[in-house]
């Protein structure tokens, strides 16, 4: 073989091998099939009521039909502009008005009622439900989404996959599985053994909250401090303990574990990189942050945001935030005993559960 050709062939081969990875690159550069900026959410700030608001706008297409139903007392069915079938009613206190023949049935249409609505048990609603009045669901139902202009009440062991919003109160009987967003403009009440992910309401209660919870027990001079308010900082490289009944003014940061004794009062925020325990009756005016697990003992009062990076257990009588200073309670896994009140957001990224006290 001619040495010149051999060298030329080798050079050509190497050049081809070198250029090979560039072929898809050149194609992409030319086609620009993935050249748009990363889709950053610019307008929707992640509000929990976003879907409910969109659905309310969407369902407005049925407003004239609902008014006719109210005037005539009859039902109407048809198809929305996007092809979704609907059933429009004035009110539905008799479940026989719904296109459901037997227990265990599937309701395939969007239901819109101008007034109150009661749905039978053991039914799966694969489309959204709109109630112009109160909504009352039977036991063992499955829902996709519900928008109620007044109260919404789900029966025992009901399941929710996307969202529910109640302009009035929202209540879930024992054993409900609330996998989506639950919001209310008034109050959310979850009974024992309910599971949840994201809740938002001016007031969230688990089980039966003691009647005098509204009048906060703490000292009148206590007020919610902003987590960012200038305060002296106490930084400890290891574990730290606040003794029972002690009053500390300032922010506490412990790089290890933090133990706040019973009845102790912190006029500031607290943070532990390790586990944190708040004993019974402790109060914190600012935020409470733990890099691992957090246990909040009975009757604690916390004004600022509560974040545990691994898990959180809140026990009976604890109160987080207030009507005038709502707050967020967040952790991947949250267990809340019955008798806890949260004002604002209760958000379990992976799993939240209301624990029944024997």
């Amino acid at each position, binding site marked *: 073989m001619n040495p010149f050709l051999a060298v030329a062939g080798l050079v050509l081969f190497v050049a081809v091998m070198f250029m090979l*990875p*560039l072929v*898809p*690159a050149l194609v*992409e*550069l030319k086609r*620009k*099939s*993935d*050249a*748009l*900026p*990363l889709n*950053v*959410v*610019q*307008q*929707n*700030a*992640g*509000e*929990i009521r976003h879907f409910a608001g969109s659905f309310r706008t969407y369902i407005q297409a049925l407003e004239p039909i609902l008014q006719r139903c109210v005037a005539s007392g009859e039902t109407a069915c048809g198809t929305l502009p996007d092809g979704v079938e609907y059933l429009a009613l004035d009110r539905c206190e008799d479940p026989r008005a719904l296109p459901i023949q037997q227990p265990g049935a599937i309701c395939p249409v969007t239901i819109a009622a101008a007034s109150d609505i009661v749905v039978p048990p053991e039914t799966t609603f694969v489309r959204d439900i709109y109630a112009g009045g109160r909504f009352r669901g039977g036991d063992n139902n499955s829902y996709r989404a519900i928008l109620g202009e007044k109260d919404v009440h789900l029966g025992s062991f009901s399941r929710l996959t996307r969202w529910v919003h109640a302009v009035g109160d929202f209540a879930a009987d024992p054993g409900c599985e609330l996998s989506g967003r639950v919001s209310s403009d008034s109050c959310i009440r979850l009974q024992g053994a309910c599971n949840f992910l994201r809740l*938002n309401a001016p007031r969230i209660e688990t089980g039966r909250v003691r009647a005098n919870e509204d009048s906060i027990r703490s000292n009148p001079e206590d007020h*919610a401090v*902003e*987590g*960012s*308010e*200038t*305060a002296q*900082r106490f*930084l400890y*490289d290891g574990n730290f303990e606040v003794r029972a009944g002690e009053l500390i003014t300032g*922010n*506490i*940061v412990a*790089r290890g574990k933090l133990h706040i004794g019973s009845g102790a009062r912190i006029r*500031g*925020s*607290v*943070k532990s*990189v390790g586990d944190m325990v708040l004993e019974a009756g402790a109060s914190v005016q*600012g*935020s409470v*942050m733990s*890099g691992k697990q957090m246990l909040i003992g009975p009757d604690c009062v916390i004004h*600022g*945001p509560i*974040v545990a*990076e691994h898990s959180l257990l809140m026990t009976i009588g604890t109160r987080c*935030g207030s009507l005038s*200073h*709502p*707050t*967020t309670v*967040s952790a991947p896994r949250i267990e809340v005993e019955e008798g806890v009140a949260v004002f*604002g*957001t209760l*958000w379990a*990224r992976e799993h939240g559960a209301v624990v029944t006290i024997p």
Partner: protein
Amino acid sequence: MIHVLYFIVFVICVYTARHYWFTLNRLFGFQRHPYIDIDTASWPLVTVLVAAHNEEKVISNILSALMTVKYPEDRMLVIPVNDRSTDGTRAIIDEFVTRFPGRIQPFHRAAGKGGKAAALKDAMELVKTEVILIFDADYIPGAGLIKQLVAPFFDPEVGGVMGRVVPLNVGTNLLTRLLDLERTGGYQVDQQARMNLRLVPQHGGTVAGVRLSALREIGGWNDNSLTEDTDLTYRLLLAGWKTAYQNRSECYEEVPETWAVRIKQIMRWAKGHNQAMVTYGLRLLLGKHRATLRERIDGALLLGVYVMAPVTLLGWALALAVFFQGLAPLHGVIALFSLTAYAALGNLAAFFEIAAAARLDGTRPRICLLPFLILGFAVSIFSVSRAALSQVSDLVTGAEFHWDKTERFRKVL
């Protein structure tokens, strides 16, 4: 000579391992986003500083965006820091002040030391709030961004906050597409992995925040620093304050569209970073302060990233020299292995990181552009090395650094 080469190879291996560690952490490790769920709170008063020097092309975009964010209007004050602009920036700002009375308080700076840090330092006389957010004028914050950047300050350990920067002008040309990939790797993997591992997320000086009491504790803005963000990161760290990175707090920015602008930008970053390394490196590693051991190590490695460019060039030169010496065959083989090992493993780590980052972002076809990153790296390695050399020569000659503002490419609205 061979021992220097051994050392360089060792350092390269350390950085390579670091790339892999970060990437694997992002793919399989526990992800920390502790503050992102704080959506309900008594939101504190906040001041938003917008650094602007001849920004008529972009300033109206950011001011418009800030006027529509979902943060209580009476809790947020925007201060555009108009730093000696000679274009229409001042007029645009004043027009916004008229349109939104009480919500924007302009700071027009007519004279003084050049540079962003100096301008911010002067603007501090107007700041009364504990939480301060900082944006460069070419950024466009989304509706929920302010709350997301404020939320970490509820943590009393947090002194600084950094959000994620996302290029807006991605599709303009090859350079913008490469910069998009680099940013993706830097934020989606590097920064978030540092957050996950409780290392040292870097304050970027924009889409960022700082706690006023922390800033005062460390002595305020350092107007002698070429990169005030790196300087701030390390002074906060040494004082026991954490910088939190919020990967889901994304904000659009404009990346350079010409190589000349990119080279200037990266040279300034390199000089500032090297300056911080000289100032804080030894103290960080060996000094008595509040940083943990892992923060000391990671912080030192982060300080050294821009030195790696000239070090790598030196390594290549040494490897070739040792190989061609021919005096010690074993050494020659080792040198050759070193060179090829770096080409195979060192570069691959960075590629792997960027590909993983793009995958995490849910984008696929743009990963095809990875081979072109060699071009970007080549430009960076020589530019950064040039910056390091000029820094040394400036030190000898006593020349002063000239602040170069990054040119904007957006059309004037």
